[in-house]
């Protein structure tokens, strides 16, 4: 049989149409397309793709099941190790993980693993999730703090082991960054709700509107639970630190996206939360979040949406696919430029920048941007979004005794076990590693669940033997 050299294309909303709505851009495979793509898989014995997957999905096995049109079995196979496949199929950077190692990719285009994962996951969500048999209760209770990818994964895995899990969320909806951060056009909120619903169906109890550190301390949780997992994420927006940055009309990417996504400000005034719609929006930064913000600005009605980035396109941390989609939609790129001052009296009116050139590589291996003296220029703008990354949210570390943090504010953990310096307390995801991907947080959640299970059952054995 001759192998198809290119991946089966996935249809997507036309750029002209999609910049007027918040619906999902990528439309997914049909069953025929999925089977055709699945048949491209070489079923390598040594499974190189699996080694690239942080949660070790048995990729060749589920792809073979798709090729054989055994879709239900395919999703079961994925869910053995991945609790949130409809999310991963959409937002995982597969090009740096599974597909990077695809044997087919050495000569041709790699198998579109993410699209296949998404296809079977969506199919299951459409058909309704089958009831999940509850595990035998262990009599142990675990508190999971934060309902983002790390928390959801830890909660699901612990519930599967029969532990009673209460998932605490500070906001009014579960999902963390999946809900408030990633826009609907990239990750529809009904998909997040459905995946959260799956985790709940395993027996996890959800408590929204609970800010741990304020309503309950971690020590109080330890009085009622056998262990605590902290997965509160990277919730501290970084600002540039230049004059004028606190003027009205300047958002952190977090605020801009929370308003647009979680609060549905794009439906204002039918929904109550307002958002500023700029005419000429400047987004500072070059990551996925910056692309999300720039594309959101267009959809809100901006005439022009510009990405301002201090290096060149090849150093941009955003996924190539996201940059491509942003360009298709008309987002403009002002590269090798760094803001130095924001101008305006009552609100933002312009941003003063300086041109940069690339110098010697820095510790990240990327060439360091160096300012070009006297090259300052001014861009008119009425809305700025600062998307230059974020730090760990300090709320819990600040008020929890004996919980050690690193110099950058992340919680100190043993990487393998996610154990913190405080007995019975585990942490994982961005709060422990600093800003990373959804799947890396999920992987930490998995590791944490394993060692929490080990910790609480061992505690039990000790108690009975003494």
């Amino acid at each position, binding site marked *: 049989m001759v192998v198809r050299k290119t991946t089966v294309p996935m249809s997507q909303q036309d750029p002209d149409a999609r910049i007027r709505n918040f619906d999902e851009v990528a439309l997914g495979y049909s069953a025929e397309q999925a089977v055709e793509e699945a048949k491209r898989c070489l079923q390598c014995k040594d499974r190189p793709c699996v080694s690239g997957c942080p949660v070790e999905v048995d990729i060749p096995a589920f792809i073979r099941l798709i090729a054989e049109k055994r879709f239900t079995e395919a999703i079961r196979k994925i869910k053995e190790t991945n609790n949130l496949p409809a999310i991963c199929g959409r937002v995982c950077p597969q090009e740096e993980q599974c597909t990077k190692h695809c044997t087919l990719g050495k000569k041709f285009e790699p198998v579109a693993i993410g699209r296949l994962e998404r296809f079977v996951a969506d199919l299951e969500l459409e058909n309704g999730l089958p009831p999940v048999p509850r595990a035998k209760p262990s009599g142990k209770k675990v508190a999971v703090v934060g309902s983002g990818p790390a928390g959801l994964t830890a909660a699901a895995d612990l519930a599967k082991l029969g532990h009673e899990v209460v998932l605490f969320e500070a906001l009014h909806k579960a999902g963390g960054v999946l809900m408030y951060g990633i826009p609907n056009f990239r990750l529809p909120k009904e998909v997040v709700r459905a995946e959260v619903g799956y985790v709940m169906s395993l027996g996890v109890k959800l408590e929204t509107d609970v800010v741990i550190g304020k309503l309950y301390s971690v020590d109080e949780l330890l009085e009622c639970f056998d262990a605590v997992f902290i997965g509160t994420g990277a919730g501290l927006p970084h600002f540039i630190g230049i004059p004028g940055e606190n003027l009205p009309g300047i958002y952190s990417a977090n605020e801009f996206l929370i308003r647009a996504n979680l609060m549905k400000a794009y439906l204002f*005034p039918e929904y109550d939360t307002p958002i500023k719609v700029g005419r000429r929006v400047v987004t500072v930064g070059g990551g996925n979040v910056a692309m999300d913000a720039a594309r959101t600005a267009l959809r809100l009605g901006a005439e022009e949406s510009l990405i301002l980035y201090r290096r060149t396109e090849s150093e941009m941390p955003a996924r190539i696919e996201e940059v491509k989609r942003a360009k298709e939609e008309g987002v403009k790129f002002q590269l090798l430029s760094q803001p130095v001052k924001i101008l305006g009296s009552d609100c933002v009116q312009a941003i003063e920048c300086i041109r940069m050139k690339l110098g010697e590589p820095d510790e990240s291996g990327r060439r360091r941007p160096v300012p070009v003296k006297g090259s300052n220029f001014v861009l008119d703008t009425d809305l700025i979004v600062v998307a230059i990354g974020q730090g760990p949210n300090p709320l819990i570390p600040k008020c929890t005794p004996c919980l050690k943090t690193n110099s950058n504010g992340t919680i100190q953990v043993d990487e393998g076990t996610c154990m913190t310096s405080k007995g019975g307390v585990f942490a994982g995801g961005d709060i422990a590693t600093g800003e990373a991907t959804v799947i890396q947080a999920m992987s930490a959640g998995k590791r944490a669940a394993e060692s929490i299970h080990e910790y609480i059952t061992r505690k039990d054995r000790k108690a009975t033997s003494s």
Partner: protein
Amino acid sequence: MRANVVTFLHKILRKDTLTSDANLLVVEAPEIAKKCKPGQFIILRIDERGERIPLSLADYDPKKGTITTIFLATGKTTQKLASMSEGDFIANVAGPLGTPSDIDHFGHVVLCGGGLGIAPLYPIAKALKNMRNKITVIIGARSKNLLFYEDELKSVSDQLYVTTDDGTKGKKGFVTDQLQELLAREKIDRVVAIGPAIMMKSVADATRPYGVRTVVSLNSIMVDGTGMCGACRVEVGGETKFTCVDGPEFDAHLVDFGLLMKRLNTYLAEEKRAKELCNKTSMGAH
């Protein structure tokens, strides 16, 4: 904390109209009531389409499991909240948020409340009174019929002054006029001011020459209330701070009130639009 956690329900137990636009709500929130400290606040969301709004607390009762908030029905959300009845449920209430007030034995503390800012003074005054401070309260409003909580504050203070802009009650003038008088004749160890930004700025300007430590509670715009978005950022002593986690109370002499006022005006146009739509719909319903 409760051993068996169940979904929180927040029932409105009591609703009163205090003045023509100030409303009082007593809401069932046993866990928050247990944890609340003076100076802290809540964020609530009325329903699925609602925005998250921060509200300061006028009181809380851990025994009854209730919290009391007083708000002005000026925007779309607060109007909606004012139209709710006893027995209705509020979808989401998160709290207690923010850093509690510094409660200690300071000596003579003057608490200034302007308009809606009168309400959150009460728990602070009560706690300071318990620490054997001499408490002077100055409350002010535009007019007599906009004043409230006078009896409550009287019960926790050694002296209470009232000012009204139009002279319909107490001294004619502003809270700061009364404060100026006190500053000139009495030894004051600490001033706490809560009210409109312009009033807090005037208090800061009044106490600055006397070097009296002055604390203000800022009413910044917020979204999450956990330090995640930076909507509430303010400049204090040249540093950027988040009102929701670093505040809401700050050293009045270091706050950039001009910036605070600019930021409070961010959504004026949007608020107007929302209210117009809201009024149109409610008119259509009649």
